């Protein structure tokens, strides 16, 4: 279908330290015991997109990601892993691989996207309108866990997280306005020309840019070339394209202009042909604008279309680093650190298990949880719903696991409570521990009677006997 796919997998994102380390780049961070990247790759594979370019920041991370991909998809997919220097923006990453891009349209996907929206839908919407860019929008996740009754009263006062301010036209097909990042908090500035042309605009704050874009390649490359200062797709490129959609400076939209120079008769025929095609079709505001309000403008104004594909409510869509602007409700108020500190969103992981089990490819047992057959449970140990227990993990007696994910080959002693937590692979937990709202990275060792609340424990860290932590980041010394 003449589409190329670029997955921006990031590198060792600073924002996710200590969960992410040199050994575990962001793309390989386990979500429901599978690397984040696998969700994207499998989504693409389902759509029959087998040629994928994965862009990873940093050579080492690229090696790791490449190794994992070649191990997991060697026979099925043709994946190229490209390494770009660390700390470059998404736009720079695309610039770096621009010479690889040959197809007519480019699908750019963020590597930390977990969703079940077929990318084909976005691509189709893009093609249908001949758009310069099409962005996928999904409803912004409602933060927090549904059953957090304790702080319910306080939650009502909170606004749901706002990621983007998005303006749509009346048909909800075109993107008239978008702000992202810090711009969101500022006043909304809407261009008059766009507003005049579109007639009305619907401003939505409940939508989120899902970081899945379809770009016209020519447009993308032109923008990247011309605007060398652009760092990020989300913050620079997309807002730029949306802003200039009615006063396009792009050359690509001059396809029609190429026809000049032919003799006038064929010119007339062409005009007639385009009239025949356009007049009977349902015109969007672009056509109205391009031809002037009364169709008398001598030269059609240049426009390019910015489309939006709005995912239907039933679809699941979340990003794994979408914590920047809000924290989990449970942690709210406990610890100012937790609020400012990026943290893997618990609810997102749990929801992956809960709502989108088919995404993760597991089937639920009767208790609405996933326990690998090789996992061993001690007596009187309970594993609650929406939990996951990886292969080869052992649990002692009288444990209780609620709304948590436990990775492979973990050894958990007796009388351990795990609530709202993520325990990655090869973690050892001693007897009588209590883990609440925390993330334990791989190879963490918890000795007996450790109490953790809202902590993130970096890989390989050892928590000594009897210690209690609350809202801390625990990582090995050289990390900090």
């Amino acid at each position: 279908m003449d589409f190329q796919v670029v997955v921006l997998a990031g590198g060792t994102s600073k924002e996710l330290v200590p969960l992410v380390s040199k050994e575990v780049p962001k793309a390989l961070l386990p979500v429901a015991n599978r690397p984040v990247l696998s969700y994207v790759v499998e989504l693409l594979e389902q759509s029959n997109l087998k040629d994928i370019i994965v862009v990873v920041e940093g050579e080492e991370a690229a090696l790791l990601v490449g190794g994992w991909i070649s191990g997991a998809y060697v026979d099925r997919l043709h994946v190229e892993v490209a390494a770009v220097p660390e700390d470059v923006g998404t736009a720079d990453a695309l610039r770096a691989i621009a010479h690889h891009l040959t197809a007519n349209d480019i699908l750019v996907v963020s590597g930390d996207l977990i969703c079940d929206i077929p990318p084909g839908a976005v691509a189709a919407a893009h093609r249908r309108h001949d758009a310069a860019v099409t962005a996928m929008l999904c409803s912004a996740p409602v933060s927090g866990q549904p059953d957090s009754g304790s702080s319910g009263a306080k939650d009502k006062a909170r606004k749901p997280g706002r990621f983007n301010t998005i303006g749509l036209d009346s048909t909800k097909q075109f993107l008239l306005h978008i702000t992202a990042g810090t711009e969101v908090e500022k006043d909304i500035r809407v261009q008059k020309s766009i507003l005049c042309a579109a007639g009305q605009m619907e401003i939505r704050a409940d939508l989120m840019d899902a970081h899945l874009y379809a770009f016209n390649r020519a447009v993308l490359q032109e923008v990247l070339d011309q605007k060398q200062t652009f760092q990020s797709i989300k913050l620079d490129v997309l807002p730029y394209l949306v802003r200039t959609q009615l006063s396009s400076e792009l050359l690509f939209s001059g396809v029609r202009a190429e026809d000049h120079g032919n003799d006038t008769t064929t010119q007339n025929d062409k005009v007639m042909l385009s009239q025949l095609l356009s007049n009977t079709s349902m015109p969007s505001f672009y056509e109205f604008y391009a031809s002037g309000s009364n169709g008398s403008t001598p030269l059609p104004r240049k426009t390019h279309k910015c489309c939006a594909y709005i995912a239907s409510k039933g679809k699941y869509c979340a990003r794994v680093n979408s914590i920047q602007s809000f924290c989990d409700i449970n942690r709210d108020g406990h610890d100012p650190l937790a609020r400012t500190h990026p943290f893997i969103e618990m609810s997102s992981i749990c929801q992956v298990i809960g709502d989108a089990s088919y995404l993760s490819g597991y089937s639920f047992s009767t208790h609405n949880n996933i326990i690998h057959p090789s996992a061993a449970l001690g007596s009187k140990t309970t594993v609650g719903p929406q939990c996951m227990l990886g292969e080869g993990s052992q649990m002692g007696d009288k444990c209780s696991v609620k709304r948590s994910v436990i990775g492979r080959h973990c050894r958990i002693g007796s009388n351990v409570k795990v609530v709202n937590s993520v325990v990655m692979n090869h973690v050892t937990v001693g007897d009588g521990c209590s883990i609440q709202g925390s993330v334990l990275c791989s190879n963490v060792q918890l000795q007996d009677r450790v109490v953790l609340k809202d902590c993130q424990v970096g890989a390989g860290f050892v928590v000594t006997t009897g210690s209690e932590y609350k809202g801390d980041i625990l990582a090995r010394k050289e990390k900090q």
Partner: protein
Amino acid sequence: MDSRRTSRVIDPKIRKVGFFTPGPPPDRTQSGPASSSPPASNNSLSPVMIPPPRHASDNLSRAVAAQLGPRRLPPAADHVTVGSYNPPDSVLGSSPVSTRIGDGEFSEDSANWIRRTGSGKLGSSLPSGGFDLSAAKADLTAQKGLAVSRDEKDGEVQLQSSSKPVKEKPTKAERRALQEAQRAAKGSNAEGTKPVAVSGEATSLHEQMGKTVKHPMPKKEGPPVTSSVAASEKKGGDRLTEKDRKKDVPPPRMQFDDKSRVEKAKRRAIVKQTEARNRVELFRHLPQYERGNQLPDLESKFFQLDPMHPAVYKVGLRYIAGDIVGGNARCISMLQAFQEAIKDYTTPPEKALARDLTAKINAFVSFLIECRPLSISMGNAIRFLKARIAKLSLSLSESEAKASLCSDIDRFINEKIILADKVIVGHAVTKIREGDVLLTYGASALVEMILLHAHDNGKKFRAVVVDSRPKLEGQALLRRLVGKGLTCTYTHINAVSYIMHEVTRVLLGAASVLSNGTVYSRVGTACVAMVAHAFRVPVLVCCEAYKFHERVQLDSICSNELGDPDAISKVPGRMDVNFLDNWANKENLQLLNLVYDVTPSDYISMIITDYGMVETFGNEFNFNAGIKNGSH
């Protein structure tokens, strides 16, 4: 024109167009010997409740078809009526004009086209059925042309009435047809095959005609003649489709009340098709699907459709989303998509370009049909393209062949559509006088061009744009006209009789003009034309010749397109008016959103084509006359 019209008053009750319930038997006879209206017509209602053709004039051929032959009562009147119905066709058909359809370059295509259409007509009891045969044997007289007007019938005629001109020995095909007819007449429903000459397109017609023939068939009559014919036709159609499915597109028109066929088609379908609930009984044979899910579903499959060319896919998406509407626009965009696909096409090893590309095009076409039923103009264009592919010389290399096809498509667009439009505009502008009040309905691109051109020429006139729900296409037209400085009046179709007092001419576009002069167009056109006729306002229909079709359609039921029923349940701009939400859950409510209707030629004063302006004379306008009068 007007004076002649006034002399021949048509009682509005006589013509029942479109959707009507079986009323009392007709109380009039139209000019011409209609003595033999089929007996027991009232009992002959089939379950589908299509009223029997009781009216003499245009249903006559059906009546004749129902009566002729197998029952072996050859009332002379029938023959006379056949004769009275046919000669103009036959005369014209035998005249060499027919090959002049295409100008110069296209002559061979059009000859081919005619041949094919002719073969389509075989056995479908079209009045102009004798056309291609007579074209083939140009020396036949009109009478002979009459005799071969329909193969089965033809056989019958020859059998029954020796008085008929049993000219030279019947050709092999004719003898064969005769045999078939006899066999069919024996009531042996089991066998009975189609004449060989019938191609896939013909079968579609057959099915359709078989159906229409079947309905009026009186049930109590012994071995049901027509039904056996219909059955045999159906069978033949079946067999042929299976055999030729690969080869012939557009595939036979499916009757969507035929469960098993629908199931089969569904399995092949790319677009997910959930049949709409609460379909109107009378229109069950037409496809109607739930609209809501089609677009998202097709979109989500974007990358899964490997064999589909992106350009074709895009056009399909736009059809389904309603981005492209209108016969010309749909046809042009389809052709351009095919052009893209042909450019990117490479012949797989060990396959012939002509065959493989045809198969490819067929796949594209069936995909497009799933997106939206083809318009007649598109059908003609596809036929043209396939004829070109079939005619490709084997000596051409692949790139040459592709280039030649692409330029053929370009020329088709240029000559058959754009140039034709220009010529039509030129013709039509001569019909606009100073101070005219021109009424148009809907948004025909052609009419728009005419109005704008007349305006540019400095003619002073006023335009009345009549519009109708649910599409309100007229608004876009109005916006453009007003933008160009025309004086316009905008009204809805419910006010058409009010506004018609002021109007001096009605200009209408058409989706197609059928061979009996019937104009097949946007629903509502018939109403406008009838009102205009009642007010003695001349009705000019503008239609490019490539949209002409040899089909004969007497009502808008047997072949039509069903639009989205939800569209009529919503009031634009009024979200609060939602009384019909969830109508699909109410079992005793069915919504019908027809897309086309047919306007009988009685109500049309003139048809303006690229071959010239044709006044419709008498009851019939026909295609050939149009060509003959053509200025090219």
